[in-house]
Structure formats: structure tokens, C-alpha cells
């Protein structure tokens, strides 16, 4: 009988081994898959029962905070700034997941990513056991006052504004219309959340899409910054080669004619071409440079790459590959002026401006300034790093001269951005997206001699070819943001803005 009793022991051991195997499967092997299951709300509900760190603007305004509640999800997320910072902070919804800084810095905000430290005090030990107070807060580089300036500048129009510190890559402002109030998505009442989500998704323009870093538009003439850099980097003789004065350019291997904007005629050396944004001239330069040089320059400026941004899913800006131009020469001419298959996000165009402003170096764009712990001590600070060497310092300074001319020259397309006492360097863009539709751009930095801020503004899909151009619509917005950042009275600026409007309407801006 003892043999069977031992057999019984063996049998029960085998049953228990089966349990251990299954537990290993569930808790280790299969864990991630189960955690990712959409039906699994346990993780989210659990995380809702814990506090979350705050998100604070660079100028000290609380953008996101957790408020204790009495219901099952113990903390309610609140966004005191409402829709102003939505594109940056995102939201943290227990039904619709999370986005923006809430998603990207989730580990920091929940305290899960903080390195394990042995507690040094009794309260430290208590924190370790209770897991309630190791959340960390993040301070952004984005400024509340600059967001407000961007919002005021857009004045309700759909469009995006991205402002960077060219020397560090710090995002100073990032605002797009249409926007929405994230508070609706984080309510603890599922019906409220669903209704808010429905209203947001029903809004034309898709506010959830975060256009500033997730949508691409034809940059149009704003891309001439890159084409001009390519000239100095790859074939400097083209800079001094005068281009004929034309109203249209007959493209090779085809009967297609490339017309200047609004039937104007222009020509001359690169400074003249750049100042008035001459399409025929730059198209010719593009054909002379060739597809390879243009492509190399575009990729060194960050096209065809996903920018290393600290927000979820930044979009890749497009420049066609060299092989795609083979047997289709005319498209090189169009790509050189930012049309055809060239598409860029507002963030990318801000980086293009910042590259010129920062002596050819593109710093990694980021919104994170520093991380503070629950005792309000700074635990880490973002360290700026170079992303790309877009061009040389000497090319950058030459292109700066061109961009200064756009604003300072009487026939420049960007005179609307003139600021008394401050030299602004800029490039306009008015990309045709349809017969009577344009994407209006303004890419600028200032002061030109010692750049503190680089801005890109896009107002997509405008209908009036005369009044809606990069230089008329987008330039004043960039100007407002620059003035605000550099601390200049806005009243002074607006008078010079209106005064110069008439002089820009006749300019060809591509």
C-alpha cells in the first residue's frame, strides 16, 4: 500500500506542477498579451486609483493635475488650461487611452519609471510600501504666455504654430486649431466621456490628429530654405548665376509650363530670387542642382525621417527618393519649390528654420524641461542634444542673409513680420493644393544675429489667392509669437504689420 501512497504523492505533485506551469504561463509568458487585451481595464482602473504627477508649463502654470475624488477611481485628472495645451499634454482617459505628454511620460507621471532607491527615512519606507507617493511631475519647455500668443494669433483660424528655441530644440509653443478641451475625455462618468469623444470626432479638421507634429502639408516656397542651402552646399556657382526674368518656365521633356505666382515675372541672382520667392528661378536652380543634391540636402534637414520628438507618433516629412525622379525631370523643378511630393509637418519646418538659426545644427526637439519628485526636488533635467548637422555654419549664415532680405527688403514677401529694432529672418510659403486653395506658411527666426526663437506657422487650405498667402496670413502670427517671446510690446508691431500688407500682395510667393 505504501507504493500506492507514494504514487498518490507523485500524482498530486504532477497536478501541482501543472499549476506552476500554468501560473508561469499566465504571469510571465502571457502577461504582456493579457495586459494589452482591450477588454482588460484592470490596469487602467488600477492606475486611476493612484495619483499622477502634475504637468507644469515652463512659466509655472499647472497644465494637468490629479484631484482626489470619492468614487472608485480615486483621482480625477484635470486640465486647468483647457484646450490651450491639449496638443502638448494630451489626455489620460480610462476609456479612450492616453495621448500627448500624458502618454509619452506616463512612466514618469505614475512614478513607475523612477529608479528604485532604498528608503532612507520612515516616511520613505511608507512610500515604498504604499506606492502612493512616488509620482513625479514634469515641467515642460512650453510657455503658457506663448501658447496664448499663438492662440490669439491664429484668431480662431485652423492652423498650427510651432516655436522652438533653436539652440536647444526646446519647444516654446505648439498650438493648433481646431482644438478641444481634454477635461471632457477624463471624466469618470462613461456617458460624459463618450459624448465628449463623439463631439470631438465630429468636429471638422479632426482635433485629435495633433497637426503640429502629426500632419504634413505642402511647404511650398518655405522649402526654398532647403533648396538655397543645397546651392551653397553642393554647387555654389548657382548662387551667383543670374536666372532669366520669366513669367513661366518651360520644363524639360514636356510641354508643361511652371508659372510664377499670380502671373508675376522675376529673375536674377539667388538673393533676388529668394527675396521675392521666384518660382521660375528656383525651379531652374532645382533642375541645375539635380535630384540627388536636393534629396541629400532634404534628408540632412530631417526629411524622410521621424523626428526624435518626446510626444507619441511624430510624423515623417516627405521628400521624394532620387530614383522616383528618374525619367521624370520636371518633378525635380516642382520639388525644388516645395510642391509635388514634398510634404512637411509644422514641427519639421520649425526645425528647418532652427537649423539655419543654429549654425546648421538641428537640436532634438523636446517638450520636457525637467522632472521633479513629490518633494518638489528636481530629479533630472533634459540635456539638449544634436539631432542632425543639416548644413555648415557658413551656409547657414549665407541663408540667414537671404532670409533677412525676405523681411527687410522692400520687395520681400515677409515684410509683414518686420519688428522695429529686431532683425527677423524668414521665408514665406503659399503652396497650391488645388485650383483656388493654398497652404500658407511662414518660417522665421529672430533676432537674426543671435537667434532666440524659431517659428513655423501654417494656415492650411485657404481659398482667396490675393489676401491669403504665407506672407499675409501666416507672417503676422509668427510675428506676434516672436514679439511675445522677445518681450516686445504688441501694439508697436500691429501698426507696422498693417502698413506693409499692400506691398506684399503683388509678390510671387510660389
Amino acid at each position: 500500500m505504501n507504493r500506492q501512497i507514494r504514487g498518490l504523492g507523485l500524482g498530486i505533485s504532477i497536478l501541482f506542477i501543472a499549476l506552476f506551469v500554468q501560473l508561469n504561463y499566465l504571469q510571465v509568458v502571457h502577461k504582456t498579451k493579457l495586459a494589452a487585451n482591450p477588454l482588460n481595464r484592470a490596469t487602467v482602473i488600477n492606475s486611476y486609483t493612484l495619483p499622477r504627477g502634475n504637468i507644469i508649463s515652463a512659466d509655472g502654470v499647472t497644465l494637468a493635475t490629479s484631484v482626489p475624488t470619492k468614487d472608485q477611481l480615486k483621482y480625477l485628472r484635470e486640465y486647468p488650461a483647457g484646450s490651450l495645451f491639449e496638443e502638448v499634454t494630451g489626455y489620460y482617459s480610462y476609456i479612450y487611452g492616453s495621448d500627448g505628454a500624458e502618454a509619452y511620460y506616463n512612466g514618469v507621471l505614475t512614478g513607475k519609471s523612477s529608479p528604485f532607491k532604498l528608503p532612507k527615512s520612515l516616511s520613505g519606507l511608507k512610500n515604498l510600501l504604499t506606492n502612493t507617493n512616488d509620482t513625479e511631475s514634469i515641467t515642460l519647455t512650453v510657455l503658457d504666455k506663448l501658447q496664448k500668443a499663438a492662440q490669439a494669433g491664429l484668431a480662431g483660424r485652423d492652423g498650427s504654430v510651432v516655436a522652438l528655441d533653436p539652440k536647444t530644440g526646446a519647444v516654446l509653443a505648439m498650438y493648433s486649431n481646431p482644438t478641444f478641451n481634454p477635461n471632457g475625455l477624463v471624466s469618470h462618468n462613461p456617458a460624459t466621456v463618450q459624448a465628449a469623444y463623439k463631439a470631438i470626432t465630429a468636429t471638422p479638421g479632426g482635433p485629435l490628429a495633433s497637426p503640429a507634429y502629426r500632419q504634413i502639408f505642402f511647404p511650398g516656397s518655405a522649402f526654398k530654405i532647403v533648396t538655397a542651402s543645397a546651392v551653397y552646399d553642393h554647387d555654389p556657382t548657382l548662387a551667383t548665376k543670374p536666372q532669366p526674368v520669366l513669367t513661366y518656365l518651360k520644363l524639360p521633356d514636356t510641354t508643361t509650363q511652371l508659372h510664377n505666382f499670380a502671373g508675376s515675372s522675376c529673375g536674377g541672382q539667388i538673393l533676388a530670387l529668394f527675396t521675392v520667392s521666384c518660382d521660375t528661378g528656383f525651379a531652374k536652380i532645382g533642375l541645375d542642382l539635380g535630384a540627388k543634391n536636393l534629396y541629400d540636402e532634404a534628408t540632412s534637414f530631417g526629411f524622410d525621417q521621424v523626428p526624435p520628438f518626446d510626444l507619441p507618433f511624430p510624423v515623417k516629412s516627405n521628400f521624394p527618393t532620387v530614383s522616383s525622379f528618374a525619367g521624370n525631370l520636371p518633378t525635380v523643378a516642382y520639388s525644388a519649390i516645395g510642391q509635388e511630393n514634398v510634404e512637411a509637418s509644422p514641427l519639421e519646418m520649425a526645425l528647418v528654420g532652427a537649423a539655419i538659426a543654429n549654425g546648421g545644427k538641428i537640436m532634438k526637439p523636446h517638450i520636457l524641461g525637467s522632472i521633479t519628485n513629490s518633494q518638489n526636488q528636481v530629479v533630472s533635467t533634459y540635456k539638449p542634444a544634436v539631432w542632425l548637422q543639416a548644413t555648415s555654419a557658413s551656409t547657414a549664415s549665407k541663408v540667414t542673409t537671404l532670409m533677412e532680405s525676405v523681411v527687410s527688403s522692400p520687395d520681400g514677401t515677409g515684410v509683414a513680420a518686420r519688428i522695429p529694432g529686431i532683425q527677423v529672418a524668414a521665408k514665406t510659403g503659399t503652396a497650391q493644393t488645388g485650383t483656388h486653395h493654398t497652404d500658407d506658411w511662414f518660417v522665421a527666426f529672430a533676432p537674426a544675429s543671435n537667434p532666440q526663437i524659431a517659428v513655423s506657422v501654417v494656415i492650411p487650405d485657404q481659398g482667396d489667392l490675393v489676401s491669403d498667402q504665407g506672407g499675409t496670413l501666416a507672417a503676422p502670427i509668427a510675428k506676434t509669437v516672436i514679439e511675445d517671446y522677445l518681450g516686445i510690446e504688441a501694439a508697436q508691431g500691429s501698426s507696422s504689420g498693417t502698413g506693409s500688407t499692400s506691398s506684399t500682395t503683388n509678390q510671387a510667393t510660389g
Partner: protein
Amino acid sequence: MIPVPARRRTELGLIFLAVILTGGLYALAGFGKAGSLPANIGPFLGTLFALLIAAHIALRRLAPLADPILLPVAGLLNGIGYVFIARLSPHEARLQTIWTAVGIAVFVGTLLIVRRARDLERYRYMFAAGGIGMLLLPLVPGIGEDINGARLWIHVGTLNFQPGEIAKLALAIFFASLLAERADLLSQGTKRVGRFLVLDPRYLAPIVTAWGLSLVIFLAENDLGSSFLFFALFIGMLWVATGRALYLGVGAALFGGGAVLALKAIGHAQTRVQAWLDPWVHAQTTGYQIIQGWFAIANGGLYGLGPGQSGAASIPEASTDMIFAVMAEELGLLGVTAILIGFLLMVGSGLRIAVRCERPFEKLLAAGLSLILGVQTFVIVAGVTRLIPLTGITLPFVSYGGSSLLANYILLALLLRLSHGAESEARSLPVAHEPLTARGADR
């Protein structure tokens, strides 16, 4: 004065350890849930300690040579169970404390009444009738009650009771005495038909009877878990008694066949099996419980979230059937592995007692009681982790439930009584608790 055998000193030390571990866990759970020590941690630990010490003193007097591991491990599991019940439902935790006290009282009572395990053999048919009666009691109109689709409960006044928990002990005693007497017959029950050896139908009668009874439990009470436990107990003991592997095969085939047949007839069991086979299809209905359990277990990972730190509210029946899932979420793989090893230790100690017993009845009874503990733990944990269909039986000593605690403390008392008997005989000492002369003479 009676000298204290080394075994009891070991037991006392282990009881201290069990109370310290439970206290630590309770403190952590309090911090995890509310950020402070639980208000009743002092009284709770005091009560647990006092109850275990009472059981320990009873063992010193009544069964001094009994195994030293079983009581502390049971106390630890009981304590851990309380911590998790308290974390889920403070009301149930208060009741659980009362049931623990009643359980220890019954434990001492069992040791007092059953002075020699073999005396139980005399009341064989009383246990048989009592066991079967209790199994069928929930079917009596007026006192039986359906809870969650299974008819396992009786209620008298405000008191609810699951008689099946006690019935399995009575039946283990009955099987042990029956098989101890008939083992030889049953082990030779073949006859030759042509060229084949087949089982003599006469010897198949007991197994068919047991099968029929388990099928009745299954059909009438919709309880796959108890039905399986009861049948596995019988087949397991039959095999231990006879050594004929054939019984295992026939038993498995009969149970499998019966289960398939019964499934076609019973809605409740059917939905449970469907929920087992593909819970994702029924994720919001019948599969909800098992899927929430899985999510919780997976969420625990290797180290767990920490006591008191999970959501836990999303799992239905969290304090009874699904308590293991909550433990897996908060204690992680490492924690629940330790708990399962605790059960394995108890089963192993029980089987060692079976090996050391001299008489077939005692061997079979010890093996049967250990089998109950092992199989019941397996059935519920495997159900929660979806190795087998989930059934509503309790995790011994851990789950909330009075009848379950009571039955398991009786089981514990019987195993310890058997252990004391075996050790006494091994030393040629009188089985009853005459004063011992040799100090530490149990090596």
C-alpha cells in the same frame, strides 16, 4: 508534569513564524490599501495567536507526538486568507474570524472525542449514511438553496451551510473502512472470458455505486467540482487499497463519460464548460469571471503589485472562488508559488502519516484526507487559472466560508490524530496519551 516532545516545540516555533508572517502581510495590505496600519491588527494577531496556541496546547495534551508542520501551515494559510478577505470585505473578515474560532474549537473537540482513529471504523455505516445524507441534503425542498446556479447550500433560519464539505470527510472514513476490509477481494476481481481477463461485475459494484452517486450530485446539484472531488477520492482510495491501475483507468473513463452525458443535460455546467473552452466568446457573460481572473493573475506578474494594491473589485466572487486570483495579482508568481508549496507541504505531511500508519484503515484514511486536501486545492486553483473548468469549491483554509473552514479543521485534527497514533505505535507506546517518559524521544 508531561515532558514536551521536540515535535511540539518545533510546532510552537512555527506558530510564532506563521503569526509573524500573517502580521507582516496584514500590515503591508493595510499600507497598500489605505496607507496606514489596519486598525484591528493588534486584536487580530492576538486572536490568531491565541487560537493557534489553544490548538497547540490541545495537541500537547491529546496528541503530543503528532506531526509538527500541519497546524502551523494551516494557521498560516488561514491567516493569509483572512488578510485577503479583510482587504476585500471587512464584514466577511469578521465572520471569518468567528468561523476560525469555531474551527479551532471543533479541532480540539475532534481530538478529544476521537482518541483512537481506528475506533472510527466501527461507525462505518453511520458515516456512510451521514455522508450521503449530507450530500443530498441541499436537495430537500425548504432547506436547500441555489447559489450561483449550484444547489450546494442548506439554510436553517439565518444560518447557511454547505454540507458537502463535511460529507467528504464522512465518506473518506467510510471508504477507508470499506476498502480496508475488502481490498484483497477487489484486487483480484477478474475472471477469464475466452482469451481475455475482464473485471468481475461483482467487484465493479462499489465503483459503479460511487459513480452513480457522483453523477447524482452532478445532475441534481449542478456541482462539477464536488462531484469530481468525491469521485476522485473514491477512485484514489480504491487504487491505494488494491494497487490495481485498472481502477484508475475505469474511473477516469466513467467520470469522463458521465461528465459528457451530464453536460448535455445541465445548463449551469454547460455554460461553465463553454466559458472554460472559449471564455473570449462569452467575455461579457459566462466568461467574464474567468477572464477577469486571468487579467488579475497576469497583472500580478512575477512579483505582484503588493498586498492591498490591486483593484480586485472587478472579479466576481473574489473572496471565495476567485480568492486565488486576487492573491496572484498582489503576491505575484513568487507569492502564490509559496502558498501552493504550503498546500503541498500539508499534502506531503499527510501522505507521510499514511505511510507511517500500520493498519490499512488508518493508512487509507490518512491517504484519503490528504487526497481531499490536494485535489480540492488543485480543482479550484486549476479552475481559476483555466486548466480545467471553474467550479465553485473553496481553497482550503484560505477562502471565505464557515463550512469549509470547519471541515478542514476536522480534517486536520483527524490527520494529527492518525499521526500521533502512528508515532506512538512506532515507539511501542500505548496509543492513548499516557504520560511520556523520554524527552524528545521522537527521532
